[in-house]
């Protein structure tokens, strides 16, 4: 069942000379883990902002085409309505936390929605547990590390119990271990809670193993759209200059050299496993 559907979506920022996304048509099924990637400026961030209504309601500009998210035509609903169905986690953890304690921040969205106190308490506790930050409950955001802050940001969005969560390069400011932890949390949300996840990322080596749907954009257009193995192994992906996982790159090079191997690994575990089979013979 499609939870997000766009048809010929085109958007131009106010005052811009050309559109940031052009003719984007995309279908995302409920429960999918989608990775959107592409070179800087390809429009992936702009697309994210369409999903929860920041475009067109916050950013004005010109939006053409159709966009339906969780059954709602985004153009017809204010952002605060969309916020209950689509959560958005941004790149910079620091600028998503406003309150003086983690707990209050997680409750922020619920307070805005007018959720009664008891229900709020339950949801806040649940969100803190799910993102594994219970012990940070009373801490001030400024005292936390980037990785911790980002987990708080995720809890803040999770508390509103959206069906879809969009993550716009959430690990940009984190080191690889911090990034890994975030991806694990996101994966849990997808696999255990059934949240549809859309992850915009450059760090494909760490994230690609979780995805079941990959979208590559370039210059505002959706250029590739399909299963990870098809996409990462395609020639187009390489030409666009997307940072495909090294394991994939290795496989491609071996193929070029005439060594045909089974499988389409994107992670070191997969590659090692497949190589192991070959080497044993």
């Amino acid at each position: 069942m499609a939870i997000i559907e766009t048809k010929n979506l085109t958007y131009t920022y106010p005052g811009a000379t050309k559109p940031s996304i052009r003719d984007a048509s995309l279908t995302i099924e409920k429960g999918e883990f989608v990775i959107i990637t592409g070179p800087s400026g390809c429009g992936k961030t702009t697309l994210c902002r369409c999903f929860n209504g920041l475009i067109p309601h916050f950013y004005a500009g010109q939006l053409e085409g159709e966009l339906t998210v969780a059954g709602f035509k985004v153009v017809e609903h204010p952002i605060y309505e969309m916020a209950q169905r689509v959560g958005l986690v941004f790149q910079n953890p620091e600028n998503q936390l406003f309150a003086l304690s983690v707990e209050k921040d997680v409750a922020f969205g619920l307070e805005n929605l007018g959720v009664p106190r008891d229900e709020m308490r339950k949801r806040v506790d649940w969100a803190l547990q799910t993102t594994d930050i219970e012990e940070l409950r009373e801490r001030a955001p400024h005292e936390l590390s980037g990785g911790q802050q980002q987990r708080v940001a995720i809890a803040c969005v999770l508390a509103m119990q959206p069906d879809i969560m969009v993550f716009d390069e959430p690990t940009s400011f984190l080191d690889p271990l911090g990034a890994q932890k975030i991806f694990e949390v996101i994966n849990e949300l997808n696999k255990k809670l059934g949240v549809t996840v859309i992850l915009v990322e450059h760090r494909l080596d760490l994230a690609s193993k979780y995805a079941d749907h990959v979208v590559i954009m370039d210059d505002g257009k959706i250029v590739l759209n399909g299963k990870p193995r098809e996409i990462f192994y395609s020639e187009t992906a390489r030409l666009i200059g997307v940072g495909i996982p090294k394991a994939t790159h290795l496989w491609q090079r071996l193929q070029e050299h005439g060594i045909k191997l089974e499988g389409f690994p994107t992670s070191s575990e997969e590659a090692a496993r497949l190589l192991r089979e070959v080497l044993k013979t």
Partner: protein
Amino acid sequence: MSVFEGFRFRHVSSPIHRRDPRVKFLYVLVMFIAAVMFYELPPLLVLFFLPTPFVFLAGVQRQWLRSLRGAMFLATFLFVFNLIFGYISPGTIPWSMSPLEYAFSMSLRFLVLVESFSVFFLTTSPDHLSLALEQSHVPYEFTFAFTTAVRFVPVLAEEAQTIMDAQKARGLELERGNFMKRVRNYIPILIPLIVSAIRRSLELAEAMESRAWGASKKRTNLYVLKMREGDFILIIISIILLVTAIYVRYFVPVPSFTMLLPK
């Protein structure tokens, strides 16, 4: 800036810290009114030393003293100003006192105000304060602006430091040059700071919108301020204080220090 030191909140708990900020504010208001009612030195001295037990109960003596020390500069200025004023136009000061006492009283009055506010801010955490504002039906936009500002003060301070470092690493020397040059030297620091603040505001706004800002006119709150017996005690103290002050002012001949001096 030591006067600001005295206003910063510390993570401590005490019977004073736990008091409802609205009640504490009432107390400060009463102190303010009482201080303004008197010109005479003896009652002002009483008012000045009155909060002392609260200060010690809250354990904030050091910071409190520091804030007073910081305020001394302005207090001294007020003293000198009022002294000169008192001698130049003696008709404007109360007949019962010398210009010297008048000058003392005015600066003491200022200090009483400073110390009351100081105790308030020293024993009230920003989130406690914002909760009080929210429950007092201050429009949420203002409370939010206040809380967010407080929350980002350390962030901006750090950023300012980083920007200074970055520009120093390009040869900017902040200490060199005459006054004009030094002021201009701060442009490479102010502009990135301002630009960054604007960018930050945009990101914050995006995050706020994405978390249903404006969804409901009836915002709920995770916490609730409940008045406890300590608060009622403080209210009673404040009322007694106010009533006593009014009574003394209007029904008791208040001696000035000058009058008490042996002739």
